[in-house]
């Protein structure tokens, strides 16, 4: 999946998805030179911001792991990454059938809490999985990250009766989702 590409979350058989998982995985890039085997810990955080008509209504991040309505759940903060060696280090589960009726967009973001830029991150990816059968719907690689500390990954928004996901990939800077709000608003 590339930047700006949109995919509909309708299943091939016509039914729509009910639960999706946004997974985030990364590894710290090893440094070269003396003590080159030592890797520095990098703490990336995944967040999801729920919008109703461009107004932020709720946010799910490491300090608020479940949205008030219970439809979006964060599996918990991972501070170092790389545990799964290719698996998800942090994940946000969205039960699309239970998202409140006024929420029309959910934006997923990644922030570097420890301040390293994505240049120092290896094998970072973000993927969308159909939680009901584990099938990967889309994968977005953060490879060759630039000198920025945050990225808007994707947004899931209502279209007609169902949901559509659009890959964003916009770079931004900030420690938590709050710092990203100015960057998020233009993409809604």
């Amino acid at each position, binding site marked *: 999946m590339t930047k700006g590409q949109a995919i509909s979350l309708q299943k091939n058989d016509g039914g729509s998805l009910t639960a999706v998982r946004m997974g985030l995985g990364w590894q710290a890039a090893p440094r070269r030179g003396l003590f080159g085997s030592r890797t520095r810990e990098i703490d990336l955080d995944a967040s999801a911001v729920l919008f109703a*008509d461009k*107004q932020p209504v709720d946010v799910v991040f490491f300090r608020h792991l479940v949205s*008030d309505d*219970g439809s979006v759940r964060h599996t*918990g*903060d991972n501070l170092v990454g790389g*545990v799964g060696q290719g698996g998800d280090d942090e994940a946000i589960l969205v*039960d699309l059938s239970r998202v*409140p*009726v006024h929420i029309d967009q959910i934006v997923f973001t990644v922030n570097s809490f420890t301040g390293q830029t994505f240049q120092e991150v290896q094998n970072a990816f973000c993927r969308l999985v159909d939680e009901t059968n584990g099938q990967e719907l889309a994968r977005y690689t953060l490879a060759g990250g630039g000198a920025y500390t945050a990225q808007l990954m994707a947004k899931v928004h209502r279209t007609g009766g169902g949901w559509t996901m659009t890959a964003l990939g916009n770079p931004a800077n900030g420690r938590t989702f709050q710092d990203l709000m100015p960057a998020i608003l233009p993409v809604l």
Partner: protein
Amino acid sequence: MTAELVRGQNHPLSQSRLEIRVSAGTPVVAVAALGDENGRIHGVEWVAHPGAPTQPGLEVSRQAAADHRLAVDLDAMTDAVHRVGVLLALPAAGGGPGPARFGAVAAPFVAVTGLDGDEVASYTITGLEAESAVVALELYRRQGAWKVRAVGQGYTGGLAELLTDQGLPEAVPLAGSINEAVARGLARSVQAPPSRPSDGDRSRQTAAPALGPDQGGTAPQGAPGPVPPAYGGQPSGGPGQSGPQPSYGGGGAAEPSATTGGPINYSHPGRRNSAPPPPPPTAPPAQPGQPAQPVAGDATGWSMEERLYNQVWGMFEDLARSTAAYRSAVDFAESRMDKELEQALSDPRSRIGGQGDAVREAARARHAHLVDQAREVLDRDIAQLVAEADVVEPALPPAFARWDNPAWHAYRVPMEIPMALRLGDLRLPEADRIRIPMLLRLPLERGLWIDSGRADSIDGSFTDSHDMRRLAMDTAVAHAARLLAVYPAGEFTVHVIDPAGSGTQPLAPLTGTGVLAAPPAQGAAGVTDVLSRLTQRVDLVQMALRGGAPDALPPGFDTSQQLLIVNDFPHGFDDRAVNQLRYLADEGPSVGVHLMMVADREESSAYGPLLDPLWRSLLRLTPVPNSHLADPWVGHAWTYEPPLVPAGSQVLHQVLTQVAAARRAWNR
């Protein structure tokens, strides 16, 4: 707010003096070990264990116990210390009695609390199998600040292997001396007073009708107050939809042997939990497009009681969240309409002709449409929860059931303490059709306050202060009767202070049946007497526990839980008595002495802010419906309804008569 950690997760610590609570359901050894920045333990003097319970900044218990409180003072650590590991081990691994692997016992629960008792973080150590020792938590220094991490690393080779792994040179001899100290402690200690469930007793307990006998093992203890334990598997999709149930199916032949009820139990007492519990009732397959039929006990747990408890908490959370979604949508619809109306008003074009009206009309229509949609979703959720409540409510055991539940008519004095107690019902204005049972974990962790002050009742009806006091006392009696009834005979004792005798009439069910330890104390002398005795008792038990010698208590010492009902506070109380009461409120709960105040806070206003901590430490309940309780997830104000006995019902009298008879038989 408590952070419920999962394995590997960490959490910052803002305080340096901490208490670490461990509840394991079976006696375990708790050890605290210091490590340097590489996690290495330098020597035996870096380990606090039952043989050497205090080290600088550390204190652990002298013996194996199901519940521990470890004291940690991070400021007292030398600069060389970078890690404090909390280690748990089963005594059996060192030759003691009991299960030899963590897989055979309930998942241990550890919590880090501040000195004020507020939980900072908690962690349930799941997934252990053949391990007999485990690193539960690690407090570690990171850039000058301390953090806690849930570790959960188990070792099959016991403490010796664990300590070796942490780089301690004298690991094996130290593990040996720990085991020796534990064995000495076990030989010395008496059986802990209220023993928790065992299978044999379970089958004789009044099991919920038509649900199959209730069996299973030790319920995990110590999950604090209103935090629902182990909700991991609950899908947000609401109850009824069969979520990730533990798949205990499989060995169908093995299960029924233990479930046939009757007094004989062939299962090995030391291997309670090794046999899988009976499979939870599964929902029949749903019709396509229809939500699944709800069934009682459709939640995780080792026993039907625990499953029902978890199911009720699941319903509580689902209702809280569904309502949050609805309220959020309505708020949004209103703010959008306001904005649109304002825009229409400020737009000069709308002043001409009917254009403005059309815009306003459209804004209102958009509002109504969204609210209707939200209401539709909420109604769908409520219908599902109502259907679930309809099957769950009749299945509840007496401790969880309303007084009008037939379970109370079939009441028999239980053999063991239930997991929780129903304190009343909770409801939200949006969902008037559904009442969530308010279940409080037992044993009580804080006292109760039945507020006899003039509350603003929900329906606006005026209750004068005399009626209010009477109602408050009736409510207190109903709560006390329920507590007496759900504890086994002789394991719960109720004292009453009624200085002016104004509670004589409401107290009649208790005094008439003879379930009280002594007649209600009257006058200033009575107040002083009861308070002095209870204060002495708290002091004595605390000394014995602190000294690690519970067998030093005098022979014939009554080890039951104590409840003191205080009516008309502060009438009849002098300053000394007030101080004693505050001492009981602070120190009593940890040694099983609890308060139930029936009072109007206004009447003790002469004491100024001195009593504020006392009121805050009590759980406030009201004798009339009142919305003052918040849920732990979203913080809605829930309307609390007290559990009153239906008018004209004899159930209270019948139940208390049985309790009194059982107490007499037990005392003999």
